[in-house]
């Protein structure tokens, strides 16, 4: 039952360039979407979120885009920094039932 999918297990980008992480979902009832960032041996921490009534939310270097018709969201990080290297989980929620993707490991090379 994979309602949230992150098809790229890993991504490597050069420092200063843009990182684009993608996420697809199948449940049209999801109304709130989140990106969590996870460092090794730590719990996930909320990075940015977006409600289904919006198509874009920006917070500094991080922007989340939501395309409801395609059931797709993406996280853009620009410019990427080495400290952004982590695993990024996409999550989607309906009625407080949250589902997570399998994660994408981002590596930002100096």
């Amino acid at each position: 039952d994979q309602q949230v999918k992150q098809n790229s297990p890993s991504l490597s980008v050069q420092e200063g360039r843009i990182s684009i992480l993608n996420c697809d979902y199948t449940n049209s009832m999801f109304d709130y979407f989140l990106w969590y960032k996870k460092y090794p041996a730590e719990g996930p921490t909320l990075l940015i979120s977006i409600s289904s009534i919006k198509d874009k939310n920006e917070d500094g270097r991080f922007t989340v885009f939501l395309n409801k018709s395609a059931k797709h969201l993406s996280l853009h990080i620009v410019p990427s920094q080495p400290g952004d290297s982590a695993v990024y989980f996409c999550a989607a929620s309906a009625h407080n039932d949250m589902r997570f993707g399998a994660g994408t490991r981002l590596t930002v090379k100096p």
Partner: protein
Amino acid sequence: EAGVAQSPRYKIIEKRQSVAFWCNPISGHATLYWYQQILGQGPKLLIQFQNNGVVDDSQLPKDRFSAERLKGVDSTLKIQPAKLEDSAVYLCASSAQGVMDSPLHFGNGTRLTVT
């Protein structure tokens, strides 16, 4: 504010043994969650408490897993008996209200290895 506290950080047991994990949520957070994260997968919800009542335990393998949240604060998750496939990181999270009002705050997790 102090974060979600979990213990132990690591646990290694043999199959068929029992194990218990403890979680102390952020003070005042009414909702508490236990997630299982198997290597290479995203966190999967096992059980959700609202105060000391269970909201959702549909994905909890009730033949071997149990959880309680006495007095609506701390929570324990128990596995008895453990199987090899239970090897995972067990994450506790809490939120003040629902997801949209107050996103989840996660603890650092307990890494369980079953041999």
